[in-house]
């Protein structure tokens, strides 16, 4: 049987060239192909709903078989962690409240200044390369390309494609992802705890003494709670570019200079978005913690490996910050102004 007749060769060559042509046209951006994609996605919905009916019991059985032991261990660990974090949470809430007071006092922006849209994760990319999820909000909800997506733990990714009622989110671990970040060295918070008696139901009191950088916070509750005296940290910082490295590797920060005032980044430093006019994300969204620092190529400088705070492989609910970076929104679309 002849495999290489001229006719067959021509047909295969035609398919190859067609693929390359479509690929080139799509990469350059084409309204017809975008419309085709949106229409096809819409047409696929009933089929996917039907497939979901089949998928659900099979998925549950699969998870039951493969994840039961992990789930039990994780449950136990989480219980212990929650107990340990309850006390920290109370102190943290007081510090966050003071932080926002200071931001308001100095008229500064924060991620909390922007409106957010809650979204449910309805799918993820079916291939083994991209790190993309699909959420159930779209342009009808005010979502635009480039907006940052966060979870309660930190930055998750950015919107790369928005349909009327669905959007795709590129995760920070995707090899194509990049965002300007700052590496901040948290200074230890000096906390002294004294026991005071407070009246149940009274509103929390918070006194900020900016001149001395010292705050005294008393939190009211039904029982006696510790009062904390906290010295606000004055962290030093360094900026760089966070880049994803694919599904099995942690993202890294490159272009970090070894500046004398900050010193080289160290394990335990905190990485958050740096914000700014050209950044994809507003400032101060926490991303993760430095787990490794190694020298890169001369062009890269130091390479800082970051463990994201957000658990990216098990996302269910996320929030989209309605902040459009000027770089992606274009000159005609104004950025969402902070409240």
């Amino acid at each position, binding site marked *: *049987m002849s*495999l290489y007749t001229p006719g*067959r060769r021509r*047909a*295969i060559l035609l*398919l*190859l060239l*067609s*693929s*390359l*042509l*479509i*690929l*080139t*046209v*799509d*990469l350059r951006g084409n309204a017809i*192909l975008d419309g*085709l*994609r949106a229409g*096809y*996605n819409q047409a*696929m919905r009933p*089929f*996917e709903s*039907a*497939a*979901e009916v*089949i*998928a659900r019991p*099979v*998925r549950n059985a*699969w*998870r039951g078989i493969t994840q039961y032991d992990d789930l039990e261990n994780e449950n136990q660990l989480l219980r212990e962690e929650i107990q340990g974090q309850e006390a920290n949470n109370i102190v943290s809430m007081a510090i966050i409240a003071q932080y926002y007071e200071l931001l308001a006092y100095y008229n500064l922006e924060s991620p909390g200044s922007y409106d957010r849209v809650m979204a449910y994760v309805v*799918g*993820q*990319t*079916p*291939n*083994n*390369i*991209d790190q*993309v999820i699909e959420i159930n909000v779209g342009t009808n909800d005010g979502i635009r390309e480039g907006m940052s997506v966060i979870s309660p733990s930190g930055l998750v990714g950015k919107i*790369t*494609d928005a349909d009327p009622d669905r959007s*795709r989110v590129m995760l920070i671990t995707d*090899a*194509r992802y990049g965002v300007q970040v700052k590496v901040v060295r948290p200074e230890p918070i000096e906390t002294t705890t004294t026991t005071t008696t407070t009246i149940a139901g009274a509103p929390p009191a918070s006194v900020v003494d900016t001149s001395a950088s010292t705050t005294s916070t008393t939190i009211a509750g039904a029982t006696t709670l510790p009062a904390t005296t906290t010295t606000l940290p004055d962290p030093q910082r360094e900026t760089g570019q966070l*880049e*994803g*490295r*694919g*599904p*099995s*590797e942690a993202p890294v920060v490159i272009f970090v200079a070894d500046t004398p005032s900050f010193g080289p980044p160290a394990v335990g430093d905190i990485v958050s978005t740096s914000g700014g006019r050209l950044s994809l994300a507003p400032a101060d969204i926490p991303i993760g913690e430095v787990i490794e620092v190694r020298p890169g190529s001369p062009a890269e400088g130091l390479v800082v490996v970051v463990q994201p705070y957000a658990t990216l492989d098990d996302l269910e609910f996320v929030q989209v910050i309605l902040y459009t970076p000027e770089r992606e929104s274009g000159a005609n679309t104004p950025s969402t102004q902070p409240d």
Partner: protein
Amino acid sequence: MFASLVQGPLPRLALVGVMLVALQQTLFVDLRPAAVTIQIVLALAAAAGAAAGPQKGALAGFVLGMMYDLRAGTPLGSSSLSMGVGGFVAGYALSITVDPQWWLAMIFTGIGAAVGETMVPVVRSFIGEEGHFTPRLFTVVPVVSAAAMILSPVFVPVGRWCMRVKKVDWSKVKAP
């Protein structure tokens, strides 16, 4: 022209492709042995190649890849290219024998799927994306290939039906 389009393999491929893309998008994003997403659409493209030859395998890969790209949001044409190559390579089974036995078709489906999956980062590199060649590829390709081999006893007949190729009934073939 319209008649040849309707009577050709495209309607059947589109029908089966829609179902497989829907399953790929729902069920198989969760069933991930060794944290690898099984590629059932690629498996069908390779199986069609093993059942119907390199030309029809490439055509099946092109059509199924296009449907996959439209839904997955990947650059349109990238999966057509990788799946087309996968289907083409799997079609080599027919260069060894006119009517490959099930296990031979299984092997060639596996090879086609492995080549197709390997082509994904290659194609992405051509369009300027970096960072896809990682050691994880050594896990992904064997798992995708093994899954395609396991699915091939079902997918090869389906591929044959899609491409309108009839299995040779040797009892009816007369000796010259």
